[in-house]
């Protein structure tokens, strides 16, 4: 009964169950917290242009879908301002915040569109006060088709995905969003 194996087994089982219990308490202590917080976003310069999306058609070339391939999309380059204070979101069960700015809009061809324009990873201990002026969109805003020219109502929202040490992975939208419209003509300048 009191062999080395038996004692080792008991020790390992006890350590594991204590660790599991502590992890569960850590999860329970933060599961009901409200992680919403206000943020302000606005756009300074909105430009729309019609160019082919080569990244979306390169693969198709080889396979001979030439007619489908000629997909001219619209891209948009915006200059954003983004301001929020997220320091208070960090607690002992938040390892990382993944911030992202989503553009949401409706077109005749698609009822619901979401495009992420910008994202940022904030680890615990890093500066979580976001006050960005005149940042460019990190990803191109391609529409699936030609729905952006003259579009009246595109909504930008800031959201964050909370990565815990152990627990749920909620996506939380900031309180406050920004709507803007696109110019009715394509730009001829370089973007």
């Amino acid at each position, binding site marked *: 009964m009191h062999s080395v194996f038996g004692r080792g087994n008991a020790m390992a089982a006890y350590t594991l169950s204590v660790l599991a219990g502590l992890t569960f308490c850590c999860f329970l202590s933060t599961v009901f917290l409200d992680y919403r917080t206000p943020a302000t976003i606005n756009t300074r310069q909105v430009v729309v242009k019609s160019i082919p999306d080569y990244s979306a058609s390169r693969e198709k070339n080889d396979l001979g879908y030439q007619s489908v391939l000629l997909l001219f999309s619209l891209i948009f380059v915006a200059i954003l301002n983004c301001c929020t204070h997220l320091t208070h979101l960090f607690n002992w069960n938040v390892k990382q915040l*993944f911030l992202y700015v989503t553009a949401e809009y409706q077109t005749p*061809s698609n009822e619901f569109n979401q*495009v992420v324009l910008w994202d940022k990873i904030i680890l615990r201990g890093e500066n979580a006060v976001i006050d960005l002026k005149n940042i460019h969109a990190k990803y191109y805003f391609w529409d699936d088709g030609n729905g952006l020219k003259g579009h009246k109502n595109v909504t930008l929202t800031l959201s964050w995905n909370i990565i815990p040490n*152990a*627990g749920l992975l909620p996506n939380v939208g900031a309180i406050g969003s920004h709507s803007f419209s696109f110019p009715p003509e394509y730009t001829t300048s370089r973007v």
Partner: protein
Amino acid sequence: MDAWDDFKRMNKRQMLYQALSFGMIVSSALMIWKGLMVVTGSESPIVVVLSGSMEPAFQRGDLLFLTNNQEDPIRAGDIVVFKVEGREIPIVHRVLKLHEKSNGTVKFLTKGDNNNVDDRGLYAPGQLWLQKNHVVGRARGFLPYVGLVTIYMNDYPHFKYAVLVALALYVLIHRE
């Protein structure tokens, strides 16, 4: 060894009992797994992260709990686990853009947090978008490190067989 002596002293009835309890353990594990599949709607409710493409959020060996409710729509920023034709191992990445038609068909593009480019290079040749049928589930819960055991088992198959045989022997021989 004591255990082996125990085993030799067993009669037929006791051996049968041991075999039965071994079968109980295997079948209850299977029941829990299948039950989770029903509750979460995902064909694989728990996955182990196998690559570093979502670092620093997920490291190799972290465990993710998935759900795949059809009523619950996929949205940008969600972490989806998807399968691509020609690749056996599912990929865990984040939805970057998404277009949904009024009849409910949805197409979306993903990107790993730690990758510089989106996933079109990872998809099957000619594939530009993912659709609902590629999705295994969406990550809802996170538990670090626990999956390291399965990673070791996959990297060292001998270790896997040794562990399995040892466990089976322990259950079969050990006297209650």
